[in-house]
């Protein structure tokens, strides 16, 4: 038994060392970028924390949101001071806790929330979530996000690097096996918005697949409902107006999609909740017609598409204000 326990302890030690190596490999670039003040999430939260009660319009959601809405364009028309707080793979629970943190430092009149099935599905990018929340000033809020948002799975993923970074390890393993290595152009960020000059290739367009629907996604309605209600209550209690948008998809993907469950669901759900909802795939499409080349990939707008989306949002905000 002693020999067995010794071997087991040795195994645990190896596991700890392995996790330490993985943590260093994957956390070090973040640590370095924070130190050099180039980390995007760090800069976003710096803007929120250090410019108290400055921003009157906050955009929030996933990377689809930070690729779509340019605060400079919005502010130049509406005379607002907006900031794009969307982050990569932002889950709806993360949105809720992020808004709690935001409301402690800001007093926005409008919250624009991007609606996306994957923001409420069963797969989480824990690394992105915990990395984003690591910049909250409130540690209590950070822990609430981990435990209340994700339960035991959250604790496991937060504490064990090999679990936390599994998506990245998987990508790196797949990258070794893949011949294609894509190089993104250098990023350019403006008030939290990604100014992306990448234009999707014809090969990528030909490989487009339909937009996820109920049968191909793991959209969790209960989770969405729980956190959306919390977000609504939070926004309302802070005397702000919640506006929901569904950002654009490439037209080719829309043509492949039937039925468009995402559009139908959010449209009827938000009508029931009496929350203004604008599907930018169809809103004023006579003026703002997208084409596939407005996109950087299969669902992120590039700078050309973002110009249209930002102007669409301006129209939507004006319409909401008039109503």
């Amino acid at each position, binding site marked *: 038994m002693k020999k*067995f326990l010794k071997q087991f302890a040795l195994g645990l030690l190896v596991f700890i060392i392995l996790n330490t190596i993985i943590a260093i490999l994957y956390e070090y670039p973040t640590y370095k970028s924070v130190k050099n003040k180039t980390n995007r999430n760090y800069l976003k939260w710096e803007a929120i924390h250090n410019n108290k009660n400055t921003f009157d319009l906050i955009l929030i959601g996933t990377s689809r949101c930070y690729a779509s809405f340019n605060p400079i364009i919005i502010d130049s028309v509406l005379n607002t001071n907006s900031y794009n707080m969307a982050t990569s793979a932002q889950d709806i629970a993360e949105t809720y806790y992020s808004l709690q943190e935001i409301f402690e430092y800001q007093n926005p009149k409008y919250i624009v929330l991007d609606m996306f099935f994957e923001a409420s599905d069963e797969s989480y990018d824990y690394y992105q979530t915990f990395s984003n929340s690591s910049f909250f000033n409130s540690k209590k809020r950070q822990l609430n996000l981990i435990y209340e948002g994700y339960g035991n799975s959250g604790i496991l993923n937060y504490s064990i690097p090999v679990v936390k970074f599994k998506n990245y390890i998987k990508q790196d393993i797949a990258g070794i096996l893949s011949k294609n290595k894509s190089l993104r152009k250098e990023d350019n960020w403006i008030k939290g918005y990604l100014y992306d000059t990448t234009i999707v290739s014809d090969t990528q367009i030909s490989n487009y697949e339909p937009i996820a629907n109920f049968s191909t996604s793991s959209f969790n309605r209960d989770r969405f409902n729980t956190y959306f209600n919390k977000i609504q209550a939070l926004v309302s209690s802070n005397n702000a107006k919640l506006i929901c948008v569904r950002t654009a998809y490439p037209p080719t993907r829309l043509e492949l999609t039937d039925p468009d469950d995402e559009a139908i669901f959010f449209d009827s759900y938000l009508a029931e909740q009496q929350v203004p909802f604008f599907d930018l795939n169809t809103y004023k499409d006579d003026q703002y017609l997208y084409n596939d080349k407005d996109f950087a990939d299969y669902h992120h707008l590039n700078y050309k598409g973002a110009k249209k989306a930002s102007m669409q949002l301006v129209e939507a905000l004006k319409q909401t204000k008039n109503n």
Partner: protein
Amino acid sequence: MLFNSLEFFIFLPIVFGLYWVIGGKRIKSQNVLIALASYVFYGWWDWRFLSLILFSTLVDYSIGLALGKKEKLKTRKILLWISICVNLGFLGFFKYYNFFIDSLIDSFTFFGSELSINTLNIILPVGISFYTFQTLSYTIDVYNKKLEPTKDFVGFMAFVSFFPQLVAGPIERATNLLPQFSIERKFNYKNAVDGLRQVLWGLFKKIVIADNCAKYANIIFNNHTEYNGSTLLLGAFFFAFQIYGDFSGYSDIAIGVSRLFGFNLKRNFAFPYFSRDIAEFWRRWHISLSTWFRDYLYIPLGGSRGGLKMKIRNTFIIFIVSGFWHGANWTFIIWGALNALYFLPLLLTKKNRINTNLVAEGKYFPTLKELRQMAFTFFITLIAWVFFRADSVAHAFSYLYNMFDTSLFSEIEVLPSTILTLVLFFIATEWLGRSGQYAIEKIDFMKKPIRWAFYILLIILMFSFTGEEQQFIYFQF
């Protein structure tokens, strides 16, 4: 409580620690702990069904004792039938009531009449198909005087509810497992290390292979009309590895965990996808169930003795009952019947026992003939798996119809190369380790650093490729 859950990773070390602190000489105390831990394990899923397993335990324990005292054949037969009726009665009610009602309604509708009977909202108790067969094996063996009835209620309770194999097998025979609860269990280092290694391999099969193959099998099966023939074939391939990884993975974990406690369970899978014919496949797939049916149904029915009609009848009965055991759906019955059709020619031509040795024994590569045989056997089981996986008979036929059209030779539309690479790695490891009880049993020959590097690789792959968590398939049986 799932094996691949945080709760189990906390539960197991606690039970393991307490078990060996109690010590091997205090057999009764260890059995009490096993029984308690098993009830906690089972109750974690739904505590209400603990009463069912306790009742089943009480009935069969009492009947066993009564069989030990009664010599009159008629009385013994009555006692045996009580046990059979109670056990199969529970199984029949929880698993098949709604199926029979729906089938009755459908047949009345077919003939133009209406029948109004309500189905019930019945929850299927996890593991009921397994533990009822396990306790039945006890009463049948006591009846046949192959086993003395036990007077140790706690030991018997621990045998029925033994947590590693309670919910998804292997279905243990009382003659093998029950005596192990009456003897001193000594901690054996080699056994424990080997057990842990088997648990690791079982987790790899479940988490990396089964759960990832499940994702693509589900996408393809649920949208089969949108895909071409070659993709549908790939979907069936993914399901074949989903069910193998899931079920054999669970068995490996069950056997490995049992060894940590000093128990030896019977092997349940012996690399079935390397079978050269369907008879060999059925000697290697879900061994505990197929031998149970052989010993308690096939042989009492006459087996392969008797004339041609009897052989055909018995073969069909066994395979159809086996299919029906898996679930209350006509798809499982057709799956069983299809396997019977595969098996019969071999039985009738007396070729069902020609491949009893290990394929390509002592060699790295199979011969072309063996490769052809394995490919053919795998292909026909794949066809049968379509029925097993399909939601309905119509779904299965539609799937096969779409699979076997000209698009079978066109480009595959869904090709997850990383998952396919992992499956190939898995097949290669299983092939290299096919002479062992499980694929990495004989890894001892490797030097310690290389062995540990392999374990670390498996662990990294498990954490990195955690698929969307899928229920163990056999939990629904």
